[in-house]
């Protein structure tokens, strides 16, 4: 029987019932088995009870997105099958609790194979063996689903133990044994079902198994956090908000690095505390999402005016307003680029995958300190909450750039303070727009900061000539940044040169598009991808050149108004002729990219609206 090399698996259930950990266990198991995995999580803004699900794709090759149909749906209660059974591919599998789910009533392909699993029976048996009440063991349901799935895929049960050990470590390691027992029972129960042998979508063994412990099963929020750790961030302020809070809690759990993670009373305090800390010379960031980002506008302007290197992470969720708080969107781009009244330079980055999260998490502090201006990093929730197996981060030899910091002022002798306390020209007019920057505590570095327009020393002024010099100086920094920031951190073109179609995108869309490029290549279609990371200063010349040379152009983004397309038009004048959007709060699947390209190539559609996913 021929086996497959890639699969799409799903588990669902009420929030709080362990869907998340089941999926993580499954992903780990598949990773242990040598596959590359990608997982996407969907949940309601609710603590317990509402339907949530997790979709995992596992493959012999690197995967970076989900596909819509699923080969196998694992369930342990009744609602998931009702909602998702129709997504199972012909001859796919449904694992279910026969006491709860009646397959006859489900809307699904007739060829789907049924795998009833006696959850209660297994738990009862286990309870007897362990001498524990069955109610206390209900949680092993998750492992049962996963083990059953592994059995059906034909993946060895041995990986389960290692995966469990990975999941339950430290204080939780005592849970491994009992879960393993339950898992083995489930594994055997499936193997005992006759048609399990004939299951069409069994996974072929991975021939190029990556070395064990060579990869990370990472999500975007943690990848950002790790980048920040590496960068030497020493202070992070936040006010709880989905999905930014994930990164904050992750960092807080790693108190061994000495980072102060400060839960402020609101987002206004968060940004302004961060500014205050940045003034002192600390590497500091604040993390938030849409509603909280709104509250930071004024503080970001202050940092811009005072040339203070504050970093702001905005995790983008579905808007507007409270919107879809646990869903994803790329809806804050134009707001971020234009945030704050008046004109001031800001750097806006947006990473597209785990590696870029790590890179931007590291680089944002270098940029902030070098260009002495706030740096905003936009991460969509789809990226923050998705899981992907990746190679360990290349974290050696990374250079810290603290910019024009002044640690000593030679002309000043602190031993003789009575000679007067000269002011330091903190805002000296320079060619590159960047001025020397002593931090408080430096003898001889005394200067003032103010959100008002100011002189070189930081004194308030309303003199037109000084005002003009200062506006020009600040603006020059952005020109300097545009020239200096390495091109690969600004944008990158993937796929063949001179392709028939150029897809343009940003953020998490990258994963689905890169996966789609593989399919295009296989199908002999010539499609490439322009991935944009630096939104401000916008790489005007390069993007203009690339877009002008493109034969046909399709921009894909997760928002209603095609914000990147607007930004591109504003900066280059180019109106990209084909546009695809999705505004359901659900990220793009690889399939949707294929679909959009098909619409464009076959029907010359100007606008494609994508809607997949529940």
């Amino acid at each position: 029987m021929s086996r497959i090399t890639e699969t799409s698996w799903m588990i669902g259930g009420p929030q709080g019932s362990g869907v998340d950990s089941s999926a993580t266990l499954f992903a780990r198991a598949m990773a242990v088995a040598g596959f590359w995995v990608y997982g996407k999580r969907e949940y309601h803004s609710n603590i317990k009870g509402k339907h949530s699900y997790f979709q995992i794709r596992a493959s012999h090759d690197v995967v970076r997105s989900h596909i819509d149909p699923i080969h196998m749906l694992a369930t342990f209660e009744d609602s998931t099958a009702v909602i998702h059974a129709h997504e199972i591919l012909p001859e796919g599998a449904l694992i279910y609790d026969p006491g709860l789910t009646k397959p006859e009533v489900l809307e699904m392909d007739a060829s789907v194979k049924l795998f009833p699993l006696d959850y209660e029976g297994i738990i009862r048996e286990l309870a007897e063996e362990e001498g524990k009440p069955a109610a206390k063991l209900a949680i092993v349901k998750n492992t049962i689903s996963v083990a059953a799935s592994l059995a059906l895929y034909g993946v060895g049960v041995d990986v389960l133990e290692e995966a469990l050990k990975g999941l339950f470590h430290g204080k939780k390691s005592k849970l491994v044994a009992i879960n393993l027992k339950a898992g083995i029972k489930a594994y055997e129960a499936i193997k005992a079902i006759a048609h399990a042998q004939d299951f069409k979508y069994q996974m072929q063994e991975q021939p190029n198994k990556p070395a064990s412990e060579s990869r990370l099963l990472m999500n975007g929020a943690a990848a950002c956090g790790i980048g920040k750790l590496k960068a030497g961030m020493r202070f992070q302020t936040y006010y709880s908000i989905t999905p930014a809070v994930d990164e904050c809690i992750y960092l807080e759990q790693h108190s061994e690095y000495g980072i102060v993670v400060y839960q402020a009373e609101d987002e206004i305090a968060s940004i302004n505390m961060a500014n205050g800390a940045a003034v002192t010379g600390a590497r500091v960031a604040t993390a938030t999402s849409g509603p909280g980002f709104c509250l930071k506008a004024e503080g970001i302007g202050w940092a811009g005016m005072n040339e203070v290197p504050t970093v702001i992470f905005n995790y983008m969720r579905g808007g507007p307003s409270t919107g879809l708080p646990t869903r994803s969107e790329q809806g804050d781009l134009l707001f971020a680029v234009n945030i704050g009244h008046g004109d001031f330079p800001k750097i806006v980055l947006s990473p597209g995958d785990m590696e870029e999260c790590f890179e931007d998490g590291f680089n944002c502090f270098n940029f902030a300190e070098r260009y002495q201006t706030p740096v905003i990093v936009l991460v969509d929730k789809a990226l923050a909450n998705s899981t992907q197996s990746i190679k360990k981060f290349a974290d050696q030899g990374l250079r810290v750039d603290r910019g024009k910091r002044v640690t000593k002022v030679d002309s000043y002798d602190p031993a003789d303070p009575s000679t007067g306390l000269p002011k330091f020209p903190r805002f000296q007019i320079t060619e590159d727009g960047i001025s020397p920057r002593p931090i408080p505590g430096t003898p001889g570095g005394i200067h003032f900061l103010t959100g008002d327009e100011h002189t070189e020393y930081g004194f308030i002024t309303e003199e037109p000539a000084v005002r003009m010099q200062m506006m020009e100086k600040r603006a020059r920094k952005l020109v300097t940044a545009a020239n200096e920031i390495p091109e690969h951190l600004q944008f990158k073109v993937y796929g063949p040169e001179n392709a028939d179609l150029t897809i343009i995108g940003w953020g998490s869309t990258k994963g689905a598009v890169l996966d789609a490029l593989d399919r295009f290549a296989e199908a002999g279609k010539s499609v490439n991808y322009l991935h944009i990371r630096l939104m401000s200063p916008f790489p005007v010349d390069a993007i203009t050149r690339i877009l002008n040379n493109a034969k046909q152009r399709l921009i894909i983004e997760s928002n209603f108004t095609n914000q990147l397309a607007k930004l591109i038009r504003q900066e280059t004048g180019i109106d990209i002729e084909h546009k695809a959007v999705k505004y359901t709060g659900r990220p793009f699947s690889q399939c949707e990219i294929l679909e959009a390209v098909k619409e464009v190539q076959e029907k010359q559609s100007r606008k494609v609206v994508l809607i997949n996913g529940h």
Partner: protein
Amino acid sequence: MATKQHTEQSFPTLDVKLKPFQLRSDKNPDWCPGCGDFGIVNAIQQAVSELQLQPWKVEFFAGIGCSGKSAQYLQAYGIHTLHGRVLPYALGAKIANPNNVVIATGGDGDGYGIGAGHFMHAGRRNVDITYIVFDNEVYGLTKGQASPTLEVGMQPKSLALPHISQAINPLALAIASGYTFVARSYAFDAKHLKQTIMDAINHRGVSLVDVHQPCPTYNDLHPKEYYTETVNSGQSELPRLQYLEETGYNGFVEDATNLEAYQAKKIAAIAEAYKLTDRVVLGTYWKVSLPTYADRLETNIPLLREYAPMDVPFHDDNFIANTDLSSACEEFVV
């Protein structure tokens, strides 16, 4: 930092005592003649001089308002922040770098109006900063609108209609919010004000000094004369200004671990803050020694016993980032 266990501060100091004028920047204040802000900034300069603080180790934060301009006049790192946000700035700076002395200032509108939320929450943290509020009952810089300390029914000359919101009592609110040092002083009582500011700086923890400040331009209810007038007590004419220590009241908590006594004292302090009197009573209403935020942080993050947060090393001499990520990555390794 050896001082951490102490209940009073000790800072690295200068060998010489700078003259207050040496602590003035070369920017001339542009306040209206007779404005109380002159008195307050003078007192701050004198306190800094007296304490022999190293000026380059002083971070002087200010809000936005007439009062906020003071950030420019002290010879120290001056940070003129945003309206209502001086406390978050000051807190962020002090937490990141506890080695500097942090003084925050601002108006009553700034601190108790738009800043009320931060004002309350600052009490909860007990970060070691000194907060001096220039309290003139009006929004000076925007031309005299009512501030939260203006009593209901009042109508200073700047208002078109009488004020219809009740005033807050900043001292009572500060005590209730958890401030560990709470005092009132007066802009033109140079001696008392200087001493109070010194005490506040010396106090380890978050301290509030609410300073009554005449605004001759907009507030005709409480001009300078109001403070120098005498008050008829029934029997005799008494000076308007009264000092808390004269009254026999003592707001210092000896032992914060005695909860009953602590609580009783807290209620007494609040009662004192609310006391009905025609006089203006200056003094320290409340002072208690409790662990600061930095102290508490250390229990959660032991590395901070050794380093100030901003000083935890993260790169080698060649500026190569050298943080070892293994423990951060551990849970993700497959």
